[in-house]
């Protein structure tokens, strides 16, 4: 039993980590007033870049940082459209979801002899080293270093958003850009920074899939995690800790399906029904505990100087 609980915790943390990075990206962008539907596309770019760089350089850390840069670059498109051109942010986000996977698979075919997947790549380390506690139940808790990074990023972003003046500025830009503008805050620059940060974080999220969980890039490496992260942003009411909690809950539900689906659980639920569990559970939690969620007031609205 004890072993199973530790296993559950380990798998929960593993599955939730890519979502955590994506959701944090969503939080920071939407808090500045830019809706980010494109997390999925940014994550896919990160997932591919991370795996490819790790493969060619042999350094997973270099891959991880390159993934952040790739995510940031594609986010730049979103920033140009939604901040400079005052374009519809939903449309631009959806465009990223087409462009991101498109680029990732296009370059994958170019670099890896027409294949849509990379060979296995070097992984990021575990937090206690590769074979610590091997054979004991505690080995379940020897999670990937990305799990720790995700937690640190959550704490940092929480501190940044709520305890620093820059965080206050970001939140004010997301609530009332015109008022912030009159106080001398550069709305466009703030939003640019936040959208870029959101791309970097989403890129890390993609890389924590390919550099820690599945050890390669393939077309289904990122399949829907970006959208789940988007849901976690709303679920967590646009706060870093809320989003983190939502991702953990989702990871837990997925871990439950793995543990319950195991042969020695004594349950005979068809695997497809079990696989629905995370999604049904999310809806149930929303109905029972969470209720109405209110977005930052200026979320999704382009800001033009002089408008009221």
């Amino acid at each position, binding site marked *: 039993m004890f072993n199973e609980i530790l296993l559950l915790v380990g798998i929960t943390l593993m599955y939730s980590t890519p979502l955590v990075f994506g959701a944090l990206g969503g939080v920071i962008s939407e808090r500045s007033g830019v809706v980010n539907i494109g997390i999925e596309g940014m994550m896919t770019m990160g997932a591919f870049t991370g795996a490819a760089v790790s493969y060619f350089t042999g350094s997973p850390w270099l891959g991880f940082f390159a993934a952040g840069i790739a995510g940031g670059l594609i986010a730049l498109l979103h920033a140009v459209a939604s901040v400079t051109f005052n374009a519809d942010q939903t449309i631009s986000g959806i465009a990223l*979801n087409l462009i991101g996977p498109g680029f990732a698979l296009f370059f994958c075919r170019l670099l890896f002899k027409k294949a849509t997947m990379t060979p296995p790549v070097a992984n990021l380390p575990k937090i206690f080293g590769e074979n610590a506690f091997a054979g004991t139940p505690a080995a379940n808790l020897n999670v990937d270093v990305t799990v720790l990074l995700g937690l640190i990023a959550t704490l940092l972003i929480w501190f940044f958003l709520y305890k620093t003046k820059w965080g206050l500025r970001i939140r004010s830009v997301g609530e009332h850009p015109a008022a912030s503008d009159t106080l001398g805050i550069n709305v466009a620059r703030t939003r640019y920074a936040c959208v870029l940060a959101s791309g970097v974080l989403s890129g890390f999220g993609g890389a924590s899939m390919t550099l820690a969980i599945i050890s390669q890039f393939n077309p289904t490496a990122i399949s829907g995690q970006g959208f*789940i992260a988007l849901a976690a942003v709303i679920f967590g009411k646009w706060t870093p800790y809320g989003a983190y909690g939502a991702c953990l809950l989702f990871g837990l539900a997925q871990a439950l399906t793995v543990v319950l689906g195991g042969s020695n659980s004594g349950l005979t639920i068809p695997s497809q029904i079990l696989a629905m569990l995370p999604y049904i559970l999310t809806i149930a939690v929303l109905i029972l505990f969470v209720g109405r969620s209110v977005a930052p007031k200026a979320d999704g609205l382009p800001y033009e100087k002089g408008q009221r």
Partner: protein
Amino acid sequence: MKLTAKILKKPIASTLIAVFFGFIVAAVILLVAGYHPGQAFSALFHGIFARPKYISNVIIKATPIILTGLSVAFAFQTGLFNIGAEGQYIAGAVSAVLVGVKLNLPPLLQIPAVVLAGVLGGTLFGWVVGYLKAKFGIHEVITSIMLNWIGLYLSNFVVASSAYHMPNSTSSYPVNESSFTMLLPNWKTSDAGMAALKQHKWLYDVMLKTDVNFGFLIAVLMAAFIWYLLYRSTKGYELRAVGFNRDAAEFAGINVNRNIVDAMVIAGALSGLAGALAITGTAPHSISTLAAFENNGFNGLSVALIAGSSPVGCIFAGLLFGGLLYGGQSVQQDVGAPTEIINIMIGTIVFFVALTKVIPVLAEKLEKRGAAHVQ
């Protein structure tokens, strides 16, 4: 100057400019990757227009995404973001299979029964989203995303169930032949039909080598119906009013919650219809185990956006999209460039659709400047 401004103010101008940029960006990427863009595009157009059979396949490929595009566009017009078209499409396909495999009536009764089952499946998914939003204030984006996955696993559950699983395959049994909505399915494969079709080369090509079906016709009719509903009926006025300003609509005595549910029900029904018609109209007339989404619903999002959420525009955007998807296969076969260039191209078009929304505003300025000169 005035004429330029007038042309630029038409939505179609922005869309065409966006499509143009899509081709330019794709050409640059192909060049950088070492392929000849001209060859790639000629392969693309060849793959769309060269044979009657290709054109027919483009229309067949476009049919479901026109309908899911309509579903998304309709929801947009009522202020809702229906990212759940994918799940509603799957629900429609699954329900059509559930009924169509077990029921076997004469076609005149069977077809409506199977299609209606699909519509109901999509409607149910849409209703859940609308109800949860109206009753508990849960954002439609979350429930829709969750239902997409629930739909995917539900479909896999039905495929795997003993009552529907076709032995030694990864799919369900096909629906009974009486549910088929192809054009003259029995006559065209009979001796008399073959003999008659041989007289006309292109008819032969189209009828016997592709699944010509009534789906496209229905999609066009639905586009007209949705246009009428939105812009020429009281209900449509209410739906749009709720989408435009919820509080003002409520103040005017419109039942907001009811209209949210109604809007999602209609959007779900359209996507469900798309799923049902795909089952009745095209081979293999069954559902298969899904490892990932087939994107019929997600592509509907792009269609709706390229169409600027106009119901009639969805027909053309769907055809464009269907053409790129189908013709894109030839790019890889003939030129060797990865087919993903098509996804990049479609993404770029959608991206520029977002950007070119500014063109009418610029045109307005241009027009004003022109007027100042006249005075």
